[in-house]
């Protein structure tokens, strides 16, 4: 269904066999250089950032070493710093948020791209894009005033009564905690998933769909088995964006997660995330070891993002279809 990637046999001076000067004359070489510089600057900035984090955490790294990843005590007065609760909290809240946002988001994107009439789809998309612009503080405030009471009074007790046998849903229902933070994060990242996935789905060529339908598939089959896989990498890209946002979100999380460095199997428990603790304590942190431990947490988040991105990419590479129109991870 997609064009193969064989190179056309050359019949004279054709693209692909121009000389260096030919490319230079036509401006291609300069453009290539300029755009390369800009692309390289992205890598440079990232490296610089990692370098600053590395330098800024040297004391803490030497003092704690790998124990930083295992220990749970966070004591600014006696200068004992362990990062495990924050790593745990970051992973849990991001996981919860993606578990909620990805199915909802892709489902909604499919609906908007395939089923909804163009005007409805465009109008709704417009509002959804707007939501990416709502400041995270406002999400936090809405979380505190609406989501937290909802959780405490209705949702958490309901979950406890039905699924309380699972260790996930035990413990007192404060309203704040991992689950609430995950829900608020899900609301924040869903616009990214819907927006980008919808655009990508819309750009799938019409003939793909029509070919599937012509072969007798139902509407759903053509969507799920042909269109979505074709747009697979774009959708994955949107999930990356969402994951990145969830991992790094600061303000909204700190207002609803409970800010307690705790590790618990229960989603009702209050917790802490890396971004939240940095936001809470960095401005006031006095003493080199304290400040540097916070910077080390920032470095750890980078490492987490690195690993998660790597895992996700491996996932794509091993399961992607050959010959789909966009084969880049």
């Amino acid at each position, binding site marked *: 269904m997609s064009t193969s990637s064989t190179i056309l046999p050359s019949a004279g001076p054709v693209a692909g066999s121009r000389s260096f000067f030919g490319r230079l004359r*036509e401006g291609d070489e300069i*453009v290539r250089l300029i*755009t390369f510089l800009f692309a390289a600057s992205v890598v440079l900035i990232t490296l610089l*950032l990692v370098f600053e984090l590395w330098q800024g955490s040297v004391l803490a790294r030497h003092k704690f070493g790998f124990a930083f990843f295992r220990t749970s005590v966070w004591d600014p007065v006696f200068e004992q710093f362990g990062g495990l609760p924050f790593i745990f909290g970051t992973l849990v809240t991001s996981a919860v948020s993606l578990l909620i946002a990805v199915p*909802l988001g892709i489902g909604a994107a499919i609906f908007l791209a395939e089923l909804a009439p163009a005007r409805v789809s465009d109008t709704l998309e417009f509002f959804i894009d707007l939501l*990416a612009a709502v*400041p995270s503080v406002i999400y936090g*405030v809405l979380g505190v005033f609406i989501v937290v009471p909802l959780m405490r009074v209705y949702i958490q007790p309901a979950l406890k009564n039905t699924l309380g046998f699972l260790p996930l849903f035990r413990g007192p229902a404060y309203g704040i905690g991992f689950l609430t933070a995950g829900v608020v994060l899900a*609301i924040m990242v869903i616009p990214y998933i819907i927006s980008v996935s919808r*655009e990508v789905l819309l750009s799938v060529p019409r003939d793909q769909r029509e070919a599937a339908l012509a072969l007798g598939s139902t509407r759903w089959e053509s969507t799920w088995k042909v269109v979505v896989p074709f747009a697979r990498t774009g959708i994955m890209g949107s999930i990356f964006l969402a994951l990145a946002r969830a991992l790094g979100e600061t303000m909204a999380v700190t207002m609803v997660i409970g800010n307690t460095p705790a590790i618990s199997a229960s989603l009702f428990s209050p917790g802490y995330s890396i971004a939240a603790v940095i936001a809470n304590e960095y401005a006031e942190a006095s003493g080199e070891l304290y400040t540097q431990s916070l910077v080390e947490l920032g470095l750890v988040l980078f490492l987490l993002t690195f690993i998660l991105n790597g895992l996700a990419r491996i996932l794509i590479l091993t399961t992607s279809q050959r010959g789909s129109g966009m084969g880049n991870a």
Partner: protein
Amino acid sequence: MNPRLRWRKFVSNFMLTMTGCCALVAVSVLFFILGYLVYNGGISINWNFFTKLPAPVGETGGGMANAIVGSAKLLLVATLIGVPIGFLGAIYLAEFSGSKVAFVVRYAADLLNGAPSIVIGMFAFALVVHPFKQFSTLAGGFALGIMMIPITLRSTEQFLLAVPRTLREGAMALGASKWKTIQTVIVPAAYRGILTAILLAFARVAGETAPLIFTALGNQYWSHGWTEPTASLPVMIYNYALSPYDDWHRQAWAAGLVLLALILIINIVARAILSRGISVPRA
């Protein structure tokens, strides 16, 4: 109709209805948020808000005129930094690069995207504020610009790659150079998606608070030029929402609404001004 077909049709209708439900849930939550913001902000907006400087605590009648201008200035600097890097970098990735380089650049962009906004603020502090011993609009814009890069880059690249191969080959067959092809065929074809990407990145940084706290700081008065600390809407919202004063709460909602309206206006204006009418018809 054989049973298997009936089943498949049933699954089809069921799943499509489910997607409709997903859309309904997502959209209603989002509409609720917008409605809440519009309602609470709407009842708090008044002329003072747009024209007056902040009043001291406990006094009514203050506004956020300086924050509105401050946000506009910050976003201008951010766009000038973030969009060229993101856009041109994406062109390199989509059109020129080999897969190894592309892999590294994409990975770096995703890493940058995942950095907590406060870490970016710390970074901008170390790079711009610390050497010059000055909190400034430029530092804030720099921090926001860095945050715009990954979203712009990755999304633009996706849309450039989505341009059908046939268009590229057609241009090549007509003898166009790579640059010409990019300029006249590929970018216009992906234009809608690219604009979405840029506006998405813009919207994202417009509401960011944490990076500004260490870079632009804040200001009760007008910020003169580009090297003084400046007030901004997100930071004002943050300060006011977390205060115990009702008047400030109302102003925080109003600020949230104004911020949203600003993004909306820029969205509309950008699409209108930059529309060149070329886009691939809907598949």
